């Protein structure tokens, strides 16, 4: 109890300094949590587009981005005929723009695609999809920001399209996107006879390994990956994840410097007190524990405050209409744990030198200045 009081006493003695340190950790944790969660949410949304009613993605080997992948129509036809395949859906990704909206995701799909079949149609008839080359279906949010409804014509990119339906989906990219018949999309993006990926649903999931082997054997320039494999290995996802953690780590580094500064000042301003504890039998580990204890309290309070701030920011972002559907405020337990551990580690690292310094205080020298 007294030991704990010794830890808290010093933090209370310098309230402003302690609060600044807590704020440093809190904002670092909030930044890390927000950036990581937003990017993981975005990655999750993108991967859910690919894994819609499918288990395997086939795309061009060694492309850095799926937008640059070309899978020939012949491969789609042949793979569809393989006995273990339930269905193979080609998807062509593209980015289009409209007045005031520079980036709209475009999906070139067939009418059999799960995105069309399983979505909730707010307006229009699913069966009409693909019957007109200029007939497109919009996500609900896309229809809102383009201010159009079924029957309207909307200029997108270098062409004008006829809105034949509006569908609702929980995925932000899809909800803010345009669905074109595959052939129209191929023509629009000058990619006749090819798609970006093929999403595969197998009759039996256990055939995944043999399916991948067959793709490898038949198409040297294509690669088949299961959804989980794709999420782990896709370079864009890896870059995004690394960027998110790097940004967070930089924030925590700054927070750690704040803790280090506080702890150094804390030790320097009470060398005499540390000497008194030494004279009364405190060991080096006890002195060190006291200093690390102080930093642990700062880090823990900072981490908790940061989690609250980060969560509040995520929910606030979700409330912004333009971001609706793009931000998933769900914080994964693993992210939570990593962020708290990183905050504690940062605090400990910040207290390392001050603790060593405190352990080296010689009582006789400190007490001589009476």
């Amino acid at each position, binding site marked *: 109890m007294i030991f704990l009081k010794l830890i808290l006493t010093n933090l209370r003695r310098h309230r402003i300094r302690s609060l600044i340190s807590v704020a440093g950790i809190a904002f670092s944790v909030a930044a890390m949590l927000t950036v990581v969660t937003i990017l993981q949410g975005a990655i999750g949304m993108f991967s859910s587009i690919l894994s819609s009613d499918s288990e395997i993605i086939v795309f061009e080997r060694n492309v850095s981005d799926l937008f640059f992948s070309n899978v020939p129509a012949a491969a789609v036809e042949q793979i569809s005929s393989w006995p273990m395949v339930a269905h193979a859906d080609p998807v062509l990704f593209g980015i289009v723009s409209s007045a005031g909206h520079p980036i709209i995701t475009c999906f070139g799909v067939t009418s059999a695609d799960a995105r069309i079949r399983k979505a909730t149609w707010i307006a229009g008839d699913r069966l009409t999809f693909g019957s007109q080359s200029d007939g497109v279906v919009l996500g609900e949010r896309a229809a809102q920001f383009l201010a159009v409804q079924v029957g309207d014509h909307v200029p997108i990119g270098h062409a004008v399209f006829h809105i034949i339906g509006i569908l609702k989906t929980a995925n932000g990219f899809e909800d803010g996107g345009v669905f074109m018949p595959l052939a129209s999309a191929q023509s629009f993006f000058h990619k006749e006879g090819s798609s970006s990926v093929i999403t595969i649903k197998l009759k039996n999931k256990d055939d995944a390994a043999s399916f991948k082997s067959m793709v490898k054997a038949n198409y040297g320039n294509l690669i088949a990956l299961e959804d989980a494999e794709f999420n782990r290995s896709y370079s864009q996802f890896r870059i995004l994840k690394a960027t998110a953690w790097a940004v967070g780590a930089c924030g925590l580094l700054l927070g750690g410097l704040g803790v280090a500064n506080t702890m150094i000042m804390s030790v320097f301003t009470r060398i005499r007190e540390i000497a*008194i504890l030494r004279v009364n039998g405190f060991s080096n580990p006890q002195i060190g524990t006291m200093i690390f204890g102080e930093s642990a309290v700062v880090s823990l309070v900072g981490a908790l405050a940061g989690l609250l701030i980060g969560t509040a920011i995520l929910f606030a972002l979700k409330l912004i209409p333009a971001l609706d559907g793009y931000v998933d405020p769900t914080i994964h337990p693993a992210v939570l744990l990593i962020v708290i551990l990183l905050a504690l580690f940062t605090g400990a690292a910040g207290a390392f030198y001050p603790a060593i310094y405190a352990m080296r205080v010689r009582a006789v020298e400190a007490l001589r200045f009476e």
Partner: protein
Amino acid sequence: MIASSQSNPQSRIVLQAKNLWKSYDHGAIAVLKGVDFEAVEGQAVALCGPSGCGKSTLLHLFGGLDEPDSGRVFVNGIEVNRHRNLLRLLRHEVGFVFQLHNLIPDLTLAENCLIPTVAAGVDRRVAKARLMELTERTGLSHRLDQRIQKLSGGERQRTALCRALMNRPKILLADEPTGSLDEKNSAMVFDLLLDLVATENVTLLMATHDRNLAERCHHLVEMHDGRIHELASAR
């Protein structure tokens, strides 16, 4: 050089210094120049002498807070070694009282007194009982929950005395323990010091400028220029 056990050869020697040399600033300031000293169990020994003669340094060496350049220091027959037995020495063998009380201002009187028991891992109930015993005897039992800032100078020094005796050390090293007190408080604290030394069978080695107080100890040691010049049986 001089042994205070001369009066009773059967007494056990608890403090012993053999040919102690100590200097500062890489030898530029010589503080102790070959000090030999012994003190026996249960006696009060006053170290007198002008400022800078080496009184405090001798106390620090006996308490393991500093190392001699050469020579040997023994406490209860065990050689003091800062790297081997310092913690045991500070936790169980010696207690320190300084001129300034050196209490932690944000803690209460009771918490300050309990610090040595926390360091030594003494059972909480045992520590509490000892605290009650010492504060009763020093007239502080009604001030246990007071913060240090609210105590008078005499009360602070009595608190420091309680703290020094919490783990029942056999040796009390006091460096000008009444130096910052007025005459009345000084006499009160010193009476208490002698009383506790007698009843707890503690050996007291006290550095002081106050000759009146020094003469009330069993032995009075005169130090000059880093050497012990004279030892007298004061009473």
